[in-house]
């Protein structure tokens, strides 16, 4: 056991001290830094867009934002900036935006880092020294896979931490409350996600026994993942239904909402609360709005249930869903219609967020276990 732990430590140290590690950290860091800045820009753009589209309309209009598979679908209020400010809030928003790109960057990096690992040892002859030692090849393989994965997770963590800190200073955003724990959990999951591809890279490397062939095969696998993702998305978009809309609020509603004292209080009230003491015309419209929101919620919820399986096999949605659940200040149902809601205090526990992404996590763990078993089998039969 002691030897196994030492071996894992050895492979972690090797992974971190490798020359490619620094470029990996820089790559991840730059990506998140850009995401961070993009987050700040998006927030500003949302504000401008809202003003342009809705003009003086300040009624909490439900707007639908549906992505393929509806995994992270939310219906949100485009006229009220509470959404942008609180969900997902602060420093977590850019991380969440960046996760869309991490879905392909991390597999590519994981595959490339692992693709030469075993084949290079076989080609150089180091494998002969390693495998001549009195240690089971399966134990060696296990230590290598775990060490590599943990090393890469650590690199991701360092890259993200550096980038978030730098960009946080730049756009004046900082961690608050449980955001640190959520971010760390997300980084660990990203490391685990990357390790799935490290396992694929190791497997390719051990089977092909040639660095050049392994690298190209891994690039091809990354491209297939990317292309499969795009094809799947387009298929879903092609067959997705359109959602109903509601007419813009009449002038009377706007005037009522303008004069309402909700703008003076902390959290905006719900449509029902707003309608309670409103004139009849406004009352009717606001209730229609609430009913419309409820219909949308049910439709989106149904779509989400039907299409969620796609997330468990689609890397982008897997990462996006987990990011959506983890990187938020308040705990939203993935398909909840957004209406002005009071901030949740305290922030929901991390485990609850993880439980909401159970299907994606389970899919990832299942694939990891299958690949891990396959790796051990191949490595324990490896002839050097």
């Amino acid at each position, binding site marked *: 056991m002691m030897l196994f732990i030492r071996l894992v430590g050895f492979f972690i140290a090797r992974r971190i001290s490798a020359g490619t590690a620094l470029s990996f950290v820089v790559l991840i860091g730059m990506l998140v830094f850009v995401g961070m800045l993009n987050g700040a820009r998006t927030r500003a753009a949302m504000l401008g867009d809202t003003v342009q589209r809705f003009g003086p309309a300040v009624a909490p209009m439900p707007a639908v934002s549906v992505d393929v598979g509806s995994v992270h679908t939310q219906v949100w209020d485009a006229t009220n900036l509470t959404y942008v400010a609180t969900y997902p809030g602060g420093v977590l928003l850019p991380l969440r935006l960046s996760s869309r790109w991490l879905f392909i960057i991390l597999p590519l990096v994981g595959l490339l880092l692992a693709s030469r690992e075993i084949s290079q040892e076989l080609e150089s002859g180091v494998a002969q020294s390693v495998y001549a030692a*009195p240690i089971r090849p399966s134990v060696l393989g296990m230590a290598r896979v775990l060490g590599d994965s943990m090393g890469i997770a650590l690199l991701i963590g360092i890259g993200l931490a550096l980038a978030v800190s730098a960009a946080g200073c730049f756009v004046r955003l900082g961690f608050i409350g449980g955001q640190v724990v959520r971010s760390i959990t997300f980084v660990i999951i990203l490391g685990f996600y990357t390790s799935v591809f490290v396992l694929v890279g190791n497997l390719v490397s051990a089977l092909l026994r040639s660095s050049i062939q392994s690298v190209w095969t891994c690039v091809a696998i990354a491209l297939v993942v990317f292309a499969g993702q795009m094809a799947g998305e387009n298929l879903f978009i092609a067959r997705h239904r359109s959602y109903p809309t509601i007419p813009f609020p009449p002038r009377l509603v706007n005037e009522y909402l303008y004069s309402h004292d909700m703008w003076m209080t902390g959290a905006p009230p719900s449509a029902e609360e707003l309608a309670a003491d409103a004139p009849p015309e406004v009352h009717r419209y606001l209730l229609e709005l609430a009913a419309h929101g409820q219909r949308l919620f049910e439709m989106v919820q149904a779509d989400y249930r039907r299409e969620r399986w796609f997330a468990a096999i689609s890397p982008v949605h897997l990462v996006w869903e987990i990011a959506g659940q983890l990187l938020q200040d308040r705990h939203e149902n993935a398909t909840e219609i957004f209406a002005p809601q009071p901030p949740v205090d305290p922030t929901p526990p991390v485990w609850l967020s993880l439980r909401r992404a159970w299907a994606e996590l389970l899919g990832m763990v299942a694939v990891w276990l299958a690949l891990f078993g396959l790796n051990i089998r191949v490595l324990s039969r490896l002839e050097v």
Partner: protein
Amino acid sequence: MLPIEVEDLTKVYDGRAVVDRVTFSVARHHVFGLLGPNGAGKTTTIKLLAGLIRPQAGRIRILGIDLTRQPLAVKSVIGHVYANMAFYNDMSALDNLTFFGRLHRIRGKRLRQRVGAMLRFVGLWDERGKRVGKYSQGMKQRLGIARALLHEPSVLLLDEPTSGIDVQGVNSIRELIYQLRSQDKTILIASHQLGEIELISDSIGLLKNGRLVSIGTSQGIKESLRGILYKYVVRVPQPIKDFGLAAVECRHVKDSNIVLASEPIESDLAERFGADLVEPLEPTLEEAFLWMLGNGK
């Protein structure tokens, strides 16, 4: 109980037997040389003995331990040096040896002592902090010997240990092997360098196309050719072209010709060139080796 016992060892790649029913044994504290041209199956035999690849058939026993049943026990009593030794190039010699020492379950003070002793033994103590990537191949081979000896194995498997290194490097490796020989290790050395094998081996096995075609001492192998291979020197300055049907080969060297034949042709040569110009000689191991390979004994 012999240190190395190999019985009907067979390894097949793509339907071709690379090692074909090889049987031999090595006595305690002996040096056994495995000779053969490239592709004869020497490296494969060594890899099979080191437990790096699995045989299709046959049995290997090291110090009485069955390799198939107890591969880890066998690996803990053998040291393996191969041609073009490789290490983790980005690590120092010290770190490499420490890592491999740990793989052999050597720990703490003993590990430090063994690593230090082995680096001194191979003359790399002063270079211990240097990255192995900056080592010459000769230094890597020496480091390979240090690695193979770290866990104090009783049996050493050396596969072309002097391959790819310069004359100076060859000499220092050879010197180390002589020292190991005097340390009562049982050594199996594979090489295609006949001189090297002849110098350090107690007995020799000749491999051809995966089969062991001859086994014995170098003197024994040469003697086994008596009545089979004949060698003559003919002291005539011009090259001999027509040297008789029984002749295997004729080499023109300076003012003489070396003639190898499968039958005694001394009288024929004496009649043709004069008895005083023809002298019978004993074939060298190299000639015996080449003859065996060439004639499919």
